[in-house]
């Protein structure tokens, strides 16, 4: 090892490396996995989301975001902003409270945990005595009121978290004032809700879980009013003027209560079950918002008829005669209303409703008729259908960028035009250096185009390949229509839809040429589509070809899925990328590699059986090559999907459950010795289990042989204009690498442009290299005479790259999972190699050429290889000498899906999935760094008191 490291210790190089490389995880894109709490500060205009893993994320104006992580990794239960402060308190499920603050530090705000606190009861008291159920940050900003399961309310001082014991409001003290018949019936319930009076900070409303509500005077330490209900309480809400409050209940009802000085024990003004008369689910949260026109907005979560709609996740908005029950695609975690925070305003005048569901964020515009949704600039649900692959394209030309945006805008017409209402903080990050696109392929056959230039990953355009095919399920177009007399008036909102009609539609490979606008997309059932960008709607026939990859191989039977059926006749496509050629591989195995050459107008595709080349100009199959080893039965028989989605495994487990049910029924109905069979089965299972436990985990040490399975699996395809046959003439070539360590090189003859349609493209196999270590070939690359990787097609034509050096001799770089090797061209002789696996025991998973610029000088940049290994490390390896420059741990090695999802950019950044719905963005470069940098200032407060009231009410409403 010592000798291995020695060459790296050149002080000049070491200094340069510091100027070129650094590793940072910069920002998380997408929707937080398993959100558990929501908070909002109308004062800061910031939203906070807590997750089950203890993360807390703050969002404001696009680009303004902060992230914090609790050390404990416990679920965040509640989030409350401290009124008029850059501070918030979180409650975790271990009953600990944490105070966070936003502080400015060298020109940008940072979110930091200040301190933590756990409420301790007197010795010997049960844990429920101090189990916090409700939190109220008082508008004085000095104290927190903590309601507990015991019914006691503790008061702690901020920011010290000192318990003010003399101020504790015990349930006994509260019950003293309550009529005897009540206090005898129920003693100590837990505190369900705590709400400060909107006008009088000395009064707080305490709601106990059964049916007692008390208005408590903090000054005199006594209850002034009490309200006796008949139903279990869920939540409370003050009306703006403090004359009435509203309570909602477990039985799906809500009630309005008057607060006046003359009646100390009033009856409810009204008691409504909005979706009665049949039993309804609980209303867990309610808002009563006043408007200038007098008709209030009543907004409540839940309350659906138990029997028929009990499984819906709904929030209902009632405004006069208008009523809509928004039906969400997943469980509602919490929601809040954005309303006038003008302290002098008499009415709430709600403008938007923000709903955090388990899988997505939905914002509804309440000002525009029809209450349309607002397109969020961040927190996109990446996983609205499971992500199956991703592809990154850097530095998109402005023209293409605008055309994609324009195609996307035509898809977004049903969204509201309201500007994003959560707009706190200021983004002070420099503008992104270039326009980057991240393309994600999904299980439902769609490709989504994301603006990945900056901190906000924003959906630009969605492309569906489904229209080309005939599928069982017809697209359900009347999803959003509501019948006139439909009750309850449900309306589906949100885009999360993890159920794919046909898994064969799944997208597996994407290749976009940013110069020509050609896009190639390949899928699970061997389908390859070539598309072209069209700014208008169009109706046309998609040319269809079949590529029989088995060719002359005899006697094989494909046992996997059938190929997709295509639609006959012309198909109508909306503006955007429109397919014009479809190639279907036979057998219809998943496409494992794809390459597109937009200048030569060729597309190459590979599966586990072989690869083919298609001329999409002449719409003609040029050739196919079968890579199968005759003994490789496995590849022949079944489908192979490397990315197995959660959904799929779920479906399988359901199937398994169903099957076991069926078989058990059968068993019961069978002969009399069924129990014996069962017993024997159980015994067998147990023995198998025991054997598994006893046998240690062991690994077989065996050299790879040519007979291993899936050796023919085509892992990579690469087009290059290089010296394949002789050193005087270069020619177009196609390279393919397989799982068995074989590299095929084909010499291509592409007719000149003027005769492009007249003469056929010809291909001839020129070389076949068998790596003796037989490890899968991950990538193939040709380096020009200067040792620089060849430019992308059309890159030189667009003056965006120096033309490659065709004078010096070219070199071939073959990256297998185990080694990196450089060979000379055209005569193949081995030049140098780096044996990664033999030295470190790691294997190459992903590799890309990345350009690294120096942060010190503008005129120096170099190309290196960025390599992700199966251990989750990222190594940077120099070109063309294959020297290890630096290594960074990036992904946990157990996180197989994270490693599989990783995609590098051309400028030393990358993305990988940290959950089904979130990409982590990282940077290896000192120069190209996209990370949030933002400032949150304390807004100026004209009249303190008024703002206090509102914000505290708002904050306290954070309980679902």
């Amino acid at each position, binding site marked *: 090892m010592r000798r*291995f490291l020695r060459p790296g210790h050149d002080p000049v190089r070491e200094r340069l490396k510091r100027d070129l490389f650094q590793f940072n995880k910069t920002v998380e894109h997408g929707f937080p996995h398993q959100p558990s709490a929501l908070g909002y500060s109308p004062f800061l205009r910031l939203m906070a989301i807590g997750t089950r893993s203890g993360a807390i994320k703050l969002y404001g104006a696009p680009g303004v975001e902060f992230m914090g992580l609790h050390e404990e990794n416990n679920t965040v239960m509640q989030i409350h902003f401290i009124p008029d402060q850059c501070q918030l308190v979180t409650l975790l499920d271990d009953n600990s409270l944490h105070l966070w603050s936003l502080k400015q530090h060298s020109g940008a705000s940072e979110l930091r945990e200040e301190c933590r606190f756990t409420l301790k009861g007197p010795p010997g008291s049960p844990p429920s005595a101090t189990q916090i159920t409700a939190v109220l940050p008082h508008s004085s900003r000095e104290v927190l009121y903590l309601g507990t399961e015991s019914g006691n309310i503790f008061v702690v001082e901020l920011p010290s978290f000192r318990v003010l014991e003399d101020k504790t409001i015990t349930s006994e003290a509260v019950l003293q004032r309550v009529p005897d018949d009540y206090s005898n019936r129920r003693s100590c319930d837990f505190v369900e809700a705590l709400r400060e009076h909107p006008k009088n900070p000395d009064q707080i409303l305490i709601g106990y879980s059964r049916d007692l509500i008390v208005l408590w005077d903090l000054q005199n330490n006594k209850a002034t009013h009490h309200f006796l209900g008949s139903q279990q309480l869920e939540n409370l809400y003050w009306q703006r003027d403090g004359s009435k409050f509203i309570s909602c209940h477990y039985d799906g009802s809500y009630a309005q209560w008057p607060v006046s000085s003359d009646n100390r024990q009033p009856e409810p003004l009204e008691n409504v079950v909005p979706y009665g008369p049949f039993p309804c689910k609980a209303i867990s949260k309610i808002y009563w918002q006043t408007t200038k026109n007098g008709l209030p907005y009543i907004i409540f979560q839940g309350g659906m008829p138990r029997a028929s709609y009990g499984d819906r996740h709904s929030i209902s908005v009632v405004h006069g005669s208008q009523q809509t029950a928004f039906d969400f695609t997943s469980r509602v975690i919490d929601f809040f209303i954005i309303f006038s925070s003008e302290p002098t305003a008499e009415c709430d005048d709600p403008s938007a409703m923000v709903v955090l569901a388990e899988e997505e964020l939905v914002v509804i515009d309440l000002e525009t008729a029809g209450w349309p949704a607002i397109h969020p600039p961040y927190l996109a649900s990446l996983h609205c259908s499971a992500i199956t692959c991703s592809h990154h394209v850097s530095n998109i030309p402005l023209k293409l960028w605008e055309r994609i945006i324009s195609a996307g805008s035509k898809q977004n017409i049903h969204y509201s035009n309201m500007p994003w209402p959560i707009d706190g903080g200021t983004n002070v990050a420099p503008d992104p250096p270039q326009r980057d696109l991240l393309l994600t392929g999904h299980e439902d056959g769609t490709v989504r185009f994301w603006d990945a230039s900056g901190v906000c990953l924003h959906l630009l355009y969605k492309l569906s390949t489904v229209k080309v095919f005939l599928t069982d399920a017809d697209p359900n177009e009347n999803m959003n229509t509501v019948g006139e007399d439909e009750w309850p008036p449900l309306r589906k909102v949100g885009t999360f839809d993890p159920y794919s009609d046909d898994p064969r539609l799944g997208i597996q490979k994407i290749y976009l040429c940013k110069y020509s606008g050609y896009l190639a997309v390949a899928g699970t059932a061997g389908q390859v589509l070539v598309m072209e960008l069209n700014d208008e709607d169009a109706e046309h026939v998609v040319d269809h070809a079949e590529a029989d990859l088995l060719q002359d191989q005899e006697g094989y039977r494909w046992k996997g899925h059938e190929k997709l059926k295509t639609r006959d006749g012309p198909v109508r496509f909306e503006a955007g990328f429109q397919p014009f050629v479809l190639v279907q591989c036979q057998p219809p195995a998943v496409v494992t590699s794809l390459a597109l050459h937009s200048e030569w107008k060729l597309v190459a595709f590979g599966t586990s059986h072989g690869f083919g080349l298609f001329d999409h100009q002449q719409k003609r199959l040029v050739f196919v090559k079968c890579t199968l080893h005759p003994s490789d039965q496995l590849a022949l028989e079944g489908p192979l999907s490397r990315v197995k989605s959660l959904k799929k495994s779920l479906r399988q487990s359901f199937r398994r459950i169903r099957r076991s049910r069926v078989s058990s029924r059968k068993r019961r109905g069978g002969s009399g010795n069924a129990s014996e069979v069962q017993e024997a089965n159980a015994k067998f299972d147990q023995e198998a289990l025991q054997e598994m436990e006893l046998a240690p985990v062991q690994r077989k040490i065996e050299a790879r042989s040519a007979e291993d399975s899936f050796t023919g699996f085509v892992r990579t395809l690469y087009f290059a204009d290089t010296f394949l046959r002789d050193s005087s003439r270069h020619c177009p070539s196609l390279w393919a690498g397989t799982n068995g360590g074989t590299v095929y090189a084909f010499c291509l003859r592409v007719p000149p442009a003027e005769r492009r349609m007249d003469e056929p493209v010809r291909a001839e196999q020129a070389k076949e290299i068998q790596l003796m270590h037989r490890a899968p070939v991950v990538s193939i690359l040709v380096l020009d005479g200067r040792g620089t990787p060849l430019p992308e097609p059309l890159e030189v034509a667009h003056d965006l790259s120096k033309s490659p050096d065709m004078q010096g001799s070219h070199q071939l770089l073959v990256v297998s999972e185990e080694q990196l090797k450089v060979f000379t061209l055209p005569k193949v002789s081995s030049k140098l190699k780096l044996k990664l696996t033999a030295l470190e025991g790691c294997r190459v998973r992903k590799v890309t050429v990345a350009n690294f610029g120096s942060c010190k000088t503008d005129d120096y940049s170099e190309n290196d290889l960025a390599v992700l290994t199966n251990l989750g490390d990222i190594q940077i390896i120099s070109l063309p000498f294959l020297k290890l420059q630096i290594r960074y741990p990036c992904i946990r090695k157990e996180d197989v899906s994270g490693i599989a999802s990783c995609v590098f950019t051309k400028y030393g950044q990358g993305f990988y999935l940290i959950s089904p719905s979130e990409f982590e963005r990282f940077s290896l470069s000192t120069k190209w760094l996209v990370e949030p940098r933002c400032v949150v200032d304390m807004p100026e407060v004209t009249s303190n008191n008024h703002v206090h009231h509102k914000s505290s009410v708002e904050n306290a409403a954070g309980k679902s």
Partner: protein
Amino acid sequence: EFRRFSLERSKPGKFEEFYGLLQHVHKIPNVDVLVGYTDIHGDLLPINNDDNYHKAVSTANPLLRIFIQRKEDADYSAFGTDTMTRKKNVLSNVLRPDNHKKKPHIVISMPQDFRPVSSIIDVDILPETHRRVRLYKYGTDKPLGFYIRDGSSVRVTPHGLEKVPGIFISRLVPGGLAQSTGLLAVNDEVLEVNGIEVSGKSLDQVTDMMIANSRNLIITVRPANQRNNVVRNSRTSGSSGQSTESSLPSSTPNILTNFLQGEEESDEEDIIIEDSGEPQQIPKAAATSESLESLTQIELHESTQNGFLPSTEMNSDHSAGSVSMEYEVQDPDHKSLEEDGTIITL
């Protein structure tokens, strides 16, 4: 013939120079010879490269006894552990070859004529409790045939005895290469793979390393059964009983290059088929001025690949990348075989 001459202990020079000096001193400039010396334990050990030459000079006390044999009639059996202290004085073997004629042993062939299957290597630089085994894999006719597992072993540390995780051989496949050598056994702890320590690496990493090196696998183990070790100062030990097919010391002075050539053949035989012609092995690119850096790179890989990098347990005399001798004692005559028999039963 005896010669006596002096060398500067601090600057012994290179083996080639020394070899030239010997040929000069004995006035046999064109005769290939085998060079050996007796170490402090009384073993006759070969001198055929810089490292063991330096080791030999450093053991001189102050006299260093060196034996030279003409290569054609060399008695390879003379080398190895215990050779100098056996009942039969090795000197008589060496000096009076007629002694041998009375009891002619069967010379099968020069070791170069055989293809090695496995060998114990670096015996002189490893602790006695360790064994470095090299498995040569040719073709696919015989599987390597072993499994490894996680386990824990007890180490002596500054804080006392500590349990540390380790990698162990868990199973040998009957008829596999590993089993047929007899050099590896179930529960042997794997310490290094091709010169790279496995401590701190996961079972999967070690598996990948072994598979990546499967054409020339060198594993250093701590055998579970420590009784068959090569105990160099013991009277009764011998390692020949363990190795069924082992190679004798390669006697040519340029053992290093020999190795590398062999290495290249076994490791670099990527195959190219040009224009659907006959498969050929891919040659190495000739060095050009431009690829000077790449050359050093190649060298570097080879040396690490060979697994002769110093391990921490190695004798400090043999530090930096010592490509040292590879040898194994094989006693051709019956008597010592009987001896071995008794040792095995110990």
